[in-house]
C-alpha cells in the first residue's frame, strides 16, 4: 500500500486520458504510455519544481521526454497540471492541434523539446545540464528514456559525456518495460546486464519498481543527493499497466484500441482501485 494515494489517483486519470485520446485519434502508443504513467504522475505532481502557469520559468526543473511516442501520458500530465485545458486531449494527433503525434517544441506549453526519433533525449538533457552548470543553476535535469532506445549509439555517446563531466544535476530514468516496437527487448537487441553497463560507464545506478511511488520518490531523492556524477534510475515497469489485456504485450506498442477494447479498458480503469 503506497503512502501516495493522491498520486495513484493522478496516475489513473493519466491512464484514462491516454486510452481515451489514443482511441479518439485512432492511432498512438498505448503500452509505453500506460507503463510510464506512474513515473510521469510522480514527476509532475510531486517531484518537479515547475510552474504550469509559467512554462518557461527559467528556474524550472527540466523534464526531457526522449521516447516521444509515449507523449499521450506526458500531455495528460501537463493538462492535469494546468498547462492547457484537459479538453485539448481530445485533439491528440489531429490537424492544427498542439498535441502532435510526437512532441513538437513550441506547439504546446510544457513540451521541452521535439522528440520521437529515439536515442537523442539524453544528449539534449546533457546539454541543458552542462549549460545550467555554467550559470550555477540549482534546477535538476531529468530525462525519461525507453529501454528500446538503448540500442542507439547516440544515447551511449551521451552517457559517456554525462559521466565525463560528472553531471550530478542530471538524472536519467529508464522505463524498463522490456518491449520495443517489434518484439521483446532481449530478443530484438539484448540490453542485460543493463545496470552493470551503467556502473561500468561510471553512473550511480538505482533500480526500482516503476509502479511504486515510494520507490520512485525515494530514488529521485537519492539521485539528488549523489554528488559524484549522474544517476540512472532503472524503473522496472509493465507495459500497458492498468489495462489487463494490454499488460506485457509488445503488440500494444503502437496501435489504438477498437471500440470494444476502448470500452473494456475504460471500465477497468474506472473501476480499478
Amino acid at each position: 500500500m503506497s503512502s501516495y494515494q493522491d498520486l495513484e489517483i493522478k496516475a489513473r486519470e493519466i491512464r484514462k486520458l491516454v486510452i481515451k485520446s489514443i482511441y479518439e485519434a485512432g492511432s498512438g502508443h498505448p503500452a509505453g504510455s500506460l507503463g510510464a504513467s506512474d513515473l510521469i504522475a510522480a514527476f509532475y505532481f510531486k517531484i518537479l519544481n515547475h510552474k504550469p502557469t509559467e512554462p518557461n520559468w527559467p528556474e524550472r526543473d527540466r523534464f526531457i521526454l526522449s521516447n516521444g511516442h509515449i507523449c499521450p501520458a506526458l500531455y495528460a500530465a501537463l493538462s492535469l497540471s494546468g498547462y492547457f485545458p484537459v479538453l485539448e486531449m481530445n485533439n491528440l494527433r489531429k490537424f492544427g492541434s498542439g498535441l502532435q503525434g510526437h512532441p513538437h517544441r513550441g506547439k504546446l506549453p510544457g513540451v521541452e523539446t521535439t522528440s520521437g526519433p529515439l536515442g537523442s533525449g539524453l544528449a539534449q538533457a546533457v546539454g541543458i545540464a552542462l549549460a545550467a552548470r555554467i550559470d550555477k543553476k540549482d534546477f535538476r535535469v531529468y530525462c525519461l528514456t525507453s529501454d528500446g532506445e538503448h540500442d542507439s549509439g547516440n544515447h551511449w555517446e551521451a552517457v559517456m559525456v554525462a559521466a565525463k563531466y560528472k553531471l550530478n544535476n542530471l538524472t536519467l530514468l529508464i522505463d524498463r518495460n522490456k518491449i520495443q516496437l517489434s518484439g521483446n527487448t532481449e530478443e530484438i537487441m539484448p540490453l542485460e546486464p543493463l545496470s552493470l553497463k551503467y556502473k561500468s560507464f561510471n553512473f550511480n545506478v538505482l533500480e526500482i519498481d516503476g509502479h511504486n511511488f515510494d520507490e520512485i520518490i525515494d530514488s529521485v531523492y537519492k539521485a539528488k543527493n549523489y554528488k559524484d556524477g549522474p544517476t540512472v534510475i532503472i524503473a522496472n515497469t509493465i507495459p500497458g499497466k492498468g489495462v489487463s489485456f494490454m499488460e506485457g504485450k509488445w503488440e500494444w506498442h503502437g496501435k489504438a484500441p477498437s471500440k470494444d477494447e476502448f470500452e473494456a479498458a475504460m471500465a477497468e480503469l474506472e473501476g480499478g482501485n
Partner: protein
Amino acid sequence: MPEEIANSNQITKSIRDGFGEGLVEAAKNNKEIVVLTADLEESTRVSGFAKEFPERFFEVGVAEQALVTIASGVANYGKIAVATSFSVFVPGRCLEQIRTTIAINNLPVVLVGSHGGFSAGADGVTHQALEDIAITRSLPNMTVVAPADFYEAKKAIISLLNLKTPSYLRLERDASPFLTEESSSFEVGKARVLKEARDPQITFFGYGSILSEVMRAALELENSGIETRVVNVSTIKPLDEEEIIHSARVSKCLVSVEVHQKAGGLGSAIAEVLASNFAVPLEIVAVDDSFGESGKRDELLKKHHLTSSDIKERAMLALQRKSEHILVQ
C-alpha cells in the same frame, strides 16, 4: 582591385583561421556563447576559444551525433551553441539529429563544418565534403553560409552567432587568397559583387575559395573583350534572390561554380530562382555526380573540371547558348 585579387595568391590566410579569430572576438563580448567539438579542437580552430574560455568549452569525443544533440540542449537552455567538426561528419553523420533537435526546435546552434570541398585533398574521398550544402540547405529554419576567405569567415561567424537561429557554416582548411578586405561589409543573406562591369555579358556566381579561380577566369575573359561580373554568394540559404534575378536581367547569361556536387548545390538553388522568375542560360560548374580521391586540391580541381580554364570554357558555352537563345527569341 580585381586584378590584385586574381594575382594575390601569395598573400593568404585560411578560412578556418578566420572563423577561429571571429569566434574568440564574439565570445569576448557575449558570455552566452558555448563551443563544443568532436575531437577536432585544433583542426576546426577552436583552440583559441578553449584556451580563453575553458568553462564554456566541451569536448565530446569522436561522437558527432552527441555533438549536435548536446549542442541542441545547450541552446535549448538559452545559450548560443557552436558545434564544430569536419563538413563530411557535420551534417553527414548526424542529419536526423540536426533536423529534429536543432532545425525543428529552431534553436541557436551554429554547426561548423571545416575542410569543405576538396580542402582535405590528401585524406581522400571519405574526408571530402561534397554534399554538405545540399543537405543543410534542404532543412527549414537553417541558414547556410560558406565564406570566401579569412575576412569573410571572421565576419560570418560573428553574424551567425547574432542570428539566434540554426545555421551551418562551411569552412576550408588551407590558406587561400583574400577575395575581400577587412573593411568589406558582410551581411547574412546578401550576395556581394566582387567584380562589376558596365555592360556585363555574363555573371559568375560562387562561394568559398574557388572564387579565386572564378576571378581568374572572369579577368581573362575580360581581357579578350567579354565584360564579366563576379558575385560572391557566401549565403547559399537564404539565397539573395534579388541579386540572382538582377544578374539574370543585366547579363542574361550565368555561370555558377562550386566545389560540391551539382545536385542540390548553389547551381541548383540559382536554377530554382531562375525557373520561376527569369530563365536565362546557366552553366553549373560543380562536381558532376562523382566522388573524389586522394590528391592535392589543384589536382582534384583539374580532374573535376573546376579550374579557371574549365570555368572559362563553360562560360563560352553559356555565351553560345545565350546567343542561340536570343536568336530564337
